[in-house]
C-alpha cells in the first residue's frame, strides 16, 4: 500500500495526513512542489491535503489546479488511481474539474474550526467501505471557503447533520461517478487517534486499506 501526500508550498496538513496514513499502515512519501521529476507511478493513493496551496490569495486552489503537479494528479486519477482531496485538497480537485460543483465562502463569512456531526450517505466508495450506510460520525472542520454549491446531481458521500457553512443540502463530501476520487471539507486525519478527541476519521484510511487489499487479492 503506497500513498503519496502532495505538498504544495502552502499546504499545512501534509504532515498530519502523513502521520495518519502511517498509523494506518501505509508506506507514505511526500510529493513536493519543487520536485521536477515528480511521478505517481507505483502509488495506490494520492492525497491532496489541507492548507493554502499557493497562498490562495486568488481563489482557493485556483493556482494549484493549473500547475504541473495537477496534470500528473489528473493522469493518475484517469488511470483509476485513488485520489483523496481533504479541505484545500477538495478545493483543488474542484478547481481542476475532477469533482462537480463549487466551494464558496462560508455563509457567515468567517473561518470555522470545530467538530461537526456528519452522516455517511454512501458506503460503497473505496474511501467509505468501513462505515455503515447512514452511520453518524464526528469530524473536525477548519475552513473559510467550504460552502458547497451543487451543479447537477453529485454523488454525495458525507453530509453535515446541521447547517454549518451554508452548503447546498448540507453536503460535506462528494465522490466522482467512478468512485475513485473523493473530496471532503472535514479533516479525517484530525480524527485518527482517541487522544485527539475521536477516531471516526481513521475509518476513511482503513477503508482505503481494505479496498486496496481486496483489490490486490482479486489480482
Amino acid at each position, binding site marked *: 500500500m503506497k500513498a503519496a501526500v502532495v505538498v504544495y*508550498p*502552502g*499546504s*499545512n*496538513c501534509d*504532515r*498530519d495526513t502523513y*502521520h*495518519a496514513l502511517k498509523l494506518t499502515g501505509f508506506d507514505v512519501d511526500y510529493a513536493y512542489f*519543487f520536485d521536477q521529476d515528480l511521478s505517481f507511478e507505483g502509488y495506490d493513493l494520492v492525497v491532496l491535503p*489541507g*492548507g*493554502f496551496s*499557493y*497562498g490562495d*490569495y486568488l481563489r482557493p486552489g485556483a493556482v494549484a489546479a493549473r500547475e504541473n503537479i495537477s496534470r500528473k494528479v489528473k493522469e493518475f486519477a484517469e488511470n483509476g488511481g485513488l485520489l483523496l482531496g481533504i479541505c484545500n485538497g477538495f478545493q483543488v480537485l474542484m478547481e481542476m474539474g475532477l469533482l462537480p460543483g463549487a466551494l464558496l465562502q462560508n455563509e457567515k463569512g*468567517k*473561518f*470555522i*474550526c*470545530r*467538530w461537526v456531526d456528519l452522516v455517511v450517505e454512501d458506503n460503497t466508495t473505496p474511501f467509505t467501505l468501513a462505515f455503515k450506510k447512514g452511520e453518524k460520525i464526528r469530524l*473536525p472542520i*477548519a475552513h*473559510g471557503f467550504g460552502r458547497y454549491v451543487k451543479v447537477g446531481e453529485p454523488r454525495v458521500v458525507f453530509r453535515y447533520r446541521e447547517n454549518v457553512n451554508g452548503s447546498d443540502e448540507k453536503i460535506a463530501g462528494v465522490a466522482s461517478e467512478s468512485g475513485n476520487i473523493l473530496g471532503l471539507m472535514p*479533516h479525517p*486525519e*484530525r480524527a*485518527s*487517534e482517541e*487522544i*485527539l*478527541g475521536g477516531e471516526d476519521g481513521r475509518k476513511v484510511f482503513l477503508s482505503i486499506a481494505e479496498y486496496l487489499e481486496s483489490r490486490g487479492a482479486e489480482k
Partner: protein
Amino acid sequence: MRYYKELLKRLGREPTPVEKEAFAVMWSEHCGYSHTKKYIEKLPKVGLGGNAGVVALDEDTSIVFKIESHNHPSAIEPYNGAATGVGGIIRDVLAMGARPTAILDSLHFHRVIDGIIEGIADYGNSIGVPTVGGELRISERYRYNPLVNVMAVGTAKNEMIVPSKASRAGQVIVVFGGATGRDGIHGASFASEDLTGEKATKLAIQVGDPFAEKLLIEAFLEMVREGLVEGAQDLGAGGILSATSELASKSGLGVQVHLERVHLREPDMQPWEILLSESQERMAVVTSKENAKKILEIAKKYMLYGDVVAELIDEKVFRAFYKDELVMEVPIDILTTPPYEEPLNYVPGEMPDFNELDFSYTDATQVYEQYDHMVGTDTVIPPGFGSAVMRVKTGKFYALSIHSRADLTLQDPYWGTYITVVESVRKILAAGGQPLGITDCINYGDPDVAPAGLAAIMYALKDSAEHFELPVVSGNASLYNTYAAKPIPPTMVIGMVGRVEKVVKPKKGKVYLAGWHGFDLKREELLHKAIMKARESGAFVLTPSNFKALVTYEKSFARYGMKLKVKEIEGEPVHQMVLVFGKDNLGIPMQEIGVLR
C-alpha cells in the same frame, strides 16, 4: 530624539542623517528596553537566552517560547497590525531552531474587534500553527489602546537549538525570505510613543504575507536539519540594521553590510530605507562562506529571495555600504547598548482588599472558533478549558497558559502581578502540568510619568518567580500605551509552560467547588497540593479567576456534547477556589456545586 545628548557624547561628534535614523530605532524603547533593562537583569533565568526562551521538556526535546505585543500597530491598522504580530513572534521561536507548534493570544479590547481577530486568524491559520489558547478581556479602558499580545511556542530536538549570535570573524550573514519594501520603516520608534504622536501613521505598519512565512518556516528548518545554520535572528524591529548588529555584537565582533545586495520590492529605495525596513517574513542566518551557497539554494527551492548581505569582522564597528559608497560607520557597541533609565527601589506594601472593576469576560468560543486550533494534530486539550495541552508525537505532553489580571494590577501593580503568576501556576497544575518557566509581556502607560508602577510590576515578577522557583525565560515590554497622554491599566500578561505526565479529559459527573472564597498567600500551597492530588486521581480541574464568567467553559463543554450546570458562586475578586470534576475528598474545604452532563 530622546537620548540625543547621550549620542553626541558617545559618538564624540554630530551624527549624520542616516545615523540619526539608525539610533532613533536602535535606542527606541521597543528595541532598547531602556526602562526595563535593569529590572530584567535581576530576574531568575536559565540557559542561553536569545530570540526566545528555552526549557527542557525531557532529555531529548526543548520547548521554546516567548510573548510579544503588537499593540501600537493593531490600534492603527487592526488587520495587518495583528497579523504581523503573529508572524513576528513565530519567527522568534523559529530562529531558535524550533518548529512552531502553538500560538496563544491575550486580547484586551473595549469590544471584540473583528479586524484584529481576523488578522490573527488569517495569519495563524495559513501558516499551519494552531492557536490553542488565549484570553479575551473587555473593558472600556482599552478603547483607544487595544492590547494584542501573542505567545508562540515551538519544540526542537536539543541538539538543533540555534544560538542568536555569530561566533567568529569570516562568517557571513544571509538574509532570506520575502522581498524588502518600505513598509514598517520606523515601526520600532512608532511603537515607543503615544498614539497621537507624529509617527502614528499607517506607513509605520508592516504588511504580512503568511504564505511567505510558511515557506520561510520550512526552508529554515531544512537549513537547520542540514547543519548549515551557525546562528540566526529574525528580522523584526530595526530590520537589517538591528539583526546584523546584534548577531555581531553579542560575540564581540563587528559587521559589514552591503545594502545593494538586498532584494527589493521597490527598486528606488534609499540605502537608509533598506537598512531600516521592517518588511516581514525575513530571517538573518549566520553561516560559513562555503555553506552560504547551499543556504541560498534551499531558499530558492522554497521560492524565497536570499542574498549574502554581510560579513563578520574582528574590528568592532558597524559599517554599511551601498555599492562602494559608505552609508554609515559607527562603533558597534554604541549602537547595541542603548542608554538605560536608573531603576527605582520598590518595597511592596500589604496586599489591599481588591474591588470588583468593570472588566467583563465574554464568550471566547466565538473567537477561538475562527482560529484553526487543531492543525498539527497535537492539540490534546483544546481552547476553552483554561490551559491547553499539547503533545509531542514522541509521546510527551506539555501545558500552555496565558493569563493576566489587569483589574488587579490597576489597583495595585505589585500584588496584581504577583497574583497573575499565582493563578498561572494554578492553571498549569490544573492541566496536570509541572510549571517549567515564564514568559512575560508588560503593557504599560508612560514610564516617565509613572515610573513606580513599572518598578512594582517588575519587582512582583521577580518575587513571584523566585517564590515558585521558576525562571523567566523571555519577555517583552510594551510601554507608552497612552492616548492623548491617558494610559491603559498596567497589564501584565504571563505565559507559562508546564510538563504534563498524564492527560486527563473531562468526564461527566458531579462538580465540586474546592478551596476558599478569599485569598491568603500562605494557603496557596495547600490549594496547589489539592489540585495535584485531584489530577493524580484522574479528576479534571478548572481554575476560573472569576466565577461570574463561566460562559466560555459552558460553551466549550457544549462543543464536546456536554452540559455544565453549576450554582451561582460568590467569590472575592481574588479567591482560592477551583472546580473539581468527580472527586470530593482533597483535604481542603469542598462542596457539591453542580453537575457536568
